[in-house]
């Protein structure tokens, strides 16, 4: 079971959280500026990397806050957690190029 650092509460068991898919998908400012394919990309298409993944989690059985997690999907190593308004953390080369 993962040990996840909630940016508000600190380290908690994975069972207190829910994974909510890929992070940093911004809702288009004006959806009508998007053609059907672009809108389809926003709705349906998600990354499924083997390796480093930026994803959203919510501390659903805790403070109920949403935040972002950088996780290696191969090793389950959590490389960083950060609040929605915080900048995307810069990873070291070693972290980005973890064995897959």
């Amino acid at each position, binding site marked *: 079971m*993962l040990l996840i650092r909630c940016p508000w509460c600190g380290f908690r*068991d994975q069972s207190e959280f829910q994974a909510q898919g890929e992070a940093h998908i911004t809702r288009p400012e004006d*959806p*009508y500026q998007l053609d059907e394919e672009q809108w389809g990309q*926003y709705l349906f298409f998600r990354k499924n990397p083997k390796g480093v993944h930026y994803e959203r989690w*919510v501390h659903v059985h805790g403070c109920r806050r949403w935040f972002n997690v950088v996780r290696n999907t191969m*090793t389950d190593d959590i490389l960083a957690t950060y609040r929605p308004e915080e900048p995307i953390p810069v990873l070291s080369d070693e972290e980005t190029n973890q064995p897959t």
Partner: protein
Amino acid sequence: MKKQINRLEHDARLNRRKSIRFWFDNRAYVGYEGDTLASGLLANGIHLVGRSFKYHRPRGIYTAGSEEPNALVQLEENAFTEPNRRATEIEIYEGLIAHSQNCWPSRKFDFGALNSWFSRLLPAGFYYKTFMWPTSFWMTYEKYIRKLAGLGRSPTEPDPHFYDKTYAHCDVLIIGGGPAGIEAATAAGQSGCRVILADEKFEFGGMLLSENMLINGIPCHEWIDSKISKLRAMPNVKLLNRTTVTGYYDYNFLVANQRVNEHLGPRVTINSPKERLWKIRAKHVVMATGAIERPMVFADNDRPGIMLASAIRSYINRFSTLPGKNCVILTNNDSAYHAALDIADEGGQVSIIDIRTNPSGSMIESAVSRGIRIIKNHSITGVGYSRGLLRSIEIMELSEDGLNVIGKKEKLLCDLVGISGGWNPTIHLFSQSKGKLKFDQSNHCFLADQPSKNNSVILAGSCQATWFLKDCMQEGHAAGCEAAKRAGFSVDGASDEINTGQIEYGALRPLWILPGSHPIGQGKTKHFHELHNDATVGDIHLAVREGYESVEHLKRYTTTGMGTDQGKTSNLNALVALSEIRNLSIPDLGVTTFRPPYTPLSMGSIVGYDCGELFIQKRKTPIHPWHDQAHAVYEDVGDWKRPRYYSQGKETMHAAVQRECRQVRKTAGLLDASTLGKIDLQGKDTRWLLNMLYTNVWDKLEVGRCRYGLMLNEHGMIFDDGVTTRIAENHYHMTTTTGGAARVMSWIEEWLQTEWPDLEVYATSVTEQWAVASLNGPNAREILQELTDIPLDEESFPFMSMREGQVANIPARVFRISFTGELAYEINVPARHGLALWEQLIEVGRKFDICPYGTESMHVLRAEKGFIIVGQDTDGTVTPMDVGMDWIVSKKKQDFLGKRSFDRTDTSRSDRKQLVGLLTDDPQFILPEGAHVVSEVKSKPPMNMLGHITSSYMSPNIGRSIAIALLKDGFNLKGQTLNVALMNGNSQRVIVTDPVFLNV
């Protein structure tokens, strides 16, 4: 009752003052407190304890620990019974009952042993080969295979015990309470950090319990006792004996199973938990898990009376039992000589078969000086066994390469054989935690290599092939210090002087599969590398011949390592056999990953308290006690218990619902609507948020007015609906469906936190803060009038508005909204007053013949009016336009969640599934919900399916059955006649109508 013929003089770890009587296969035996079932049976001269899985061969006790592959018994009877319990781990208690498994009619004469005669017909992979054709016959075979397969019997009654679960956090978790673990716990404990020391045995001491040596001049058992009592005195150290760490997961999360009171017997312990499952998050882990002795494989090596040499030492030194009088030790290394010396010390006859050509060194000298016969460079080629006991062995000289035997057979009389092929470090947990393993050429075993990055683990002692006691203890001490230091505690690194004497061991001969008088796989004898599942080296040859030559294939084809022991004594020998056959080194073959649990977990310990009444929570409204008294029949809506209908006398559900529905439209009805989701929204940007969440416009909603809204996801599909009311300038009260309350709350939080964090909106779930009575019907106003000072006339309290005031002397918010189409008031009061409000409404309503009604009538009443229920008439693929609710979708608003998706090609199709009404030809026929609507009925599927029935009822107010359906291109089908295919093969003709049936 038999005398304990194999019991020795000394006490060892037994309490000789406390005799215990236990039963095995309906015979009584006596042992002592401190015995296991295995040691108790061996002390009484019993070797044969069961029959094997496939060939029903007689089997005995093979080990003295949790690695036991053979001595699996059915423990206890009736509701208490458990199959496949290891006799080597069961502590005996007064009145214990155990039975052998896989034997009929008895373990000495077993009918299934015929399998053994037909073993040519049961080769590896025989299920796959034999029962695969013709495919349709698998169903026939399966019944019989199931009957033959498996060991033991499952209980058929509910388990009377209960099982506990607990969480624990510690700085250092030490797995294994042997010498290394005890030293680690002492070192870490002295630093003041929180320590848990867990050991699977009922006593701490590990391998030292099987020793008789001196440590610093005192007997090693006394050393254990003094160390453990010092640890017990440390408040920061928790000692968990009878506790197996069964799983090691990410981020130092471990699961352990503690047998809390099984050793007291099932009948006296019903009031405390039988087992406890520990979920432990440790900052650092010290693995001091020891090593398991490795067997050698020879002809008929599965006979009772053959066991690991280390097990013999355990039985002598721990359990005061010498399981034979005339013993032979078969070894390829020096460590087994200790067993021979112990046997000699206890007055037993012993000789040693050492497969090495010229063993030398201090161990050999000790044995020689004691007059022990050492037979060098020989293999066992046959085993004489009869009537439950080992009688003799046959030996022959090994050829130079060890692959054949030469010379003449010699027969040795003996009743006990101890075997040793060296030691395998217990690295199962390390491998489970994604640690990498490496094959160590000098020790001929797998060792821990690279730990998983997200775990912090240190190994100490023989689990990393450190074989000498003093070194193990020093490593344990160092590991305890290091773990405590990593956890931020300061340690005094100095360790006590340790003196255990020093022994030099010679090298082992790397040979484990010993040749018999016939080539392996031929002749009558069998070489079992895997005792639990009856897999032989011959099976490995066969598997390779048939192409199953990778480790993963071999494992599945021969079932090696797939028993409840997970191959603790067999996996590596299988690899050796495979490497010899394929002429590849073991590192080139690879190894399969160990999986949790280390030893089997009971279903009870996994379930814990999550069963029976506690399986799922029951949410009850404040009015629930009244519903109980009124004979409500409940329906589960989410976790809520909602009255479905109120049964009067012997009334059926159908009759009750018809009565309730008529009554609501005739005079008045009362529904407990407390379960509706309620969200309190405050803040200056709430209106903006509502405009995004709902399809309609919220700009002009005045204070005190209510509005119905549909909520869509970004795909444009309906996912919830409800009425939201403006309580004050920046204060709204939102209601949601009962089942959708949590989903809507999360939805709002998600958008507020992730996309629009600048909005000033505070969302609070208030579902349980309000009790709601929904008063419906033509007499609703008259009834409410008697209980409130709120003016109720049409002008001062119009439809879709809210007034605050007193109802039945309780502060209330009254909403004039309706889900039945009748004049209706939803009266909200603080939850604690809900029951009082309800009782007064019923009391006042009595003269109007008011009728409490349940969710089933609510469904009928709303269907009569064509109101949808989200989740019943919609399923996440339905847009507002699909249900004919275009009127609620704003054309004016530039954006709201889901709007853009209306223009997607698929969403804007005109022939989507659309909501329509259906009327049957036969007005008395109620269509089954979920039934398929087809254009043309055929004698069998497939038929052209147009859609399905979402809601269907008998409507008393219309006087006929009604149904709602989602039909492809439904709007254009209105007026047409279609058919509904029924499960029984019949069909029903229906006319497509508007879904609004009652238009008054």
